[in-house]
């Protein structure tokens, strides 16, 4: 039967192709909708009792890292953030930690043990995490001086990624609409 010789393979081919495509995709990597879009505004209390608003950091490269004290992978990348803190000191660079599904007391102990002087934000009701489409930790967002999300990293940030992302974002020209007054805006005292 000729129809069998042609129809069955013809019907099976797209299914096999679809399954084959499925095998090439990592189901754990869920593409974010945020890169290229303006970062969602937030204002949150830090572990030190200060307040940080993203709008205050416009004109700076912001690295927004979601972490938790129970997250083992967060230990690996923390070293990278410590190095970056020293390396980019005095530049238009700001690191922010966001505590994900973890009591502040645990996060405070973890930061004291691991080191780092950047602010850790208390994410009340996980609103920042939901706004940024976070589904696990560690997740890190690189936000440019223009306030646009440049990249979302799922899993630990490597030194290579950190340097390449932050260097390229620092090298980007300052947005036209920004005045020197906007750039000099600093977060409120006590943010750590």
């Amino acid at each position, binding site marked *: 039967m000729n129809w069998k010789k042609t129809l069955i393979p013809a019907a099976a081919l797209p299914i096999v192709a*679809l399954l084959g495509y499925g095998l090439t995709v990592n189901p754990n990597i869920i593409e974010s*909708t945020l890169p290229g879009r303006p970062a969602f505004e937030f204002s949150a209390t830090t572990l030190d009792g200060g307040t940080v608003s993203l709008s205050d950091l416009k004109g700076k490269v912001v690295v927004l890292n979601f972490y938790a004290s*129970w997250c083992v992978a967060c230990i690996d990348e923390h070293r990278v953030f410590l190095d970056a803190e020293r390396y980019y000191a005095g530049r238009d660079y700001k690191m922010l930690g966001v505590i994900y599904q973890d009591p502040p007391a645990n996060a405070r102990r973890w930061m004291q043990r691991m080191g780092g002087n950047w602010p850790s934000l208390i994410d009340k*009701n996980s609103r920042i995490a*939901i706004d940024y489409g976070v589904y696990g930790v560690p997740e890190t967002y690189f936000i440019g001086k223009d306030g646009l999300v440049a990249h979302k990293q799922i899993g630990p940030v490597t030194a290579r990624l950190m340097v390449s992302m932050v260097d390229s974002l620092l090298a980007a020209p300052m947005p036209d609409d920004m005045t020197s007054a906007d750039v000099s805006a600093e977060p409120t005292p006590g943010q750590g």
Partner: protein
Amino acid sequence: MPSLNRTRHFAFLLLLLVLAAPSRPGFALQEPQPQAGTEPAQEDLEDPVLEAQVREIASKLRCPTCRALSVQDSQAGMANEMRELIREQLRAGKTPEEVTAYFVDRYGEWILLKPTAEGFNWTVWLLPVLMLGGGLFFVFMTARRWVEQGQARAAALANDGEESEL
């Protein structure tokens, strides 16, 4: 051999203990501990319409931390907080479609347990129907062929019988 018997008994008991031990899930390092969730306020519990809407929306959304469960079915901290956010947005006057769109805007279409029937997603909806249709067609054609072959064989046998009688 009393000592050998004792060893056998011990080994048997050990085996029983191992088999009876509750199976532990894999050690998930990145799974958050369920936290004291944001439970609905008393006035919300007294509003069955609002709660029904929350349940309906939450049952369509995927829990970001557990993934295989809906936000409605999950007891993870994130799911609790997402339910509370749904409740809050409905209370603020947003429609269920707007609330769903809010989550899709942030998580992408991945957050929907059922993909929308548009674009490439049609494959997911149509492929099972096409496969079922193709399968039924194959069964129908095969059955028809068998019937035809059977009829042809019966006719041939009948012809052979007639010829031999002659």
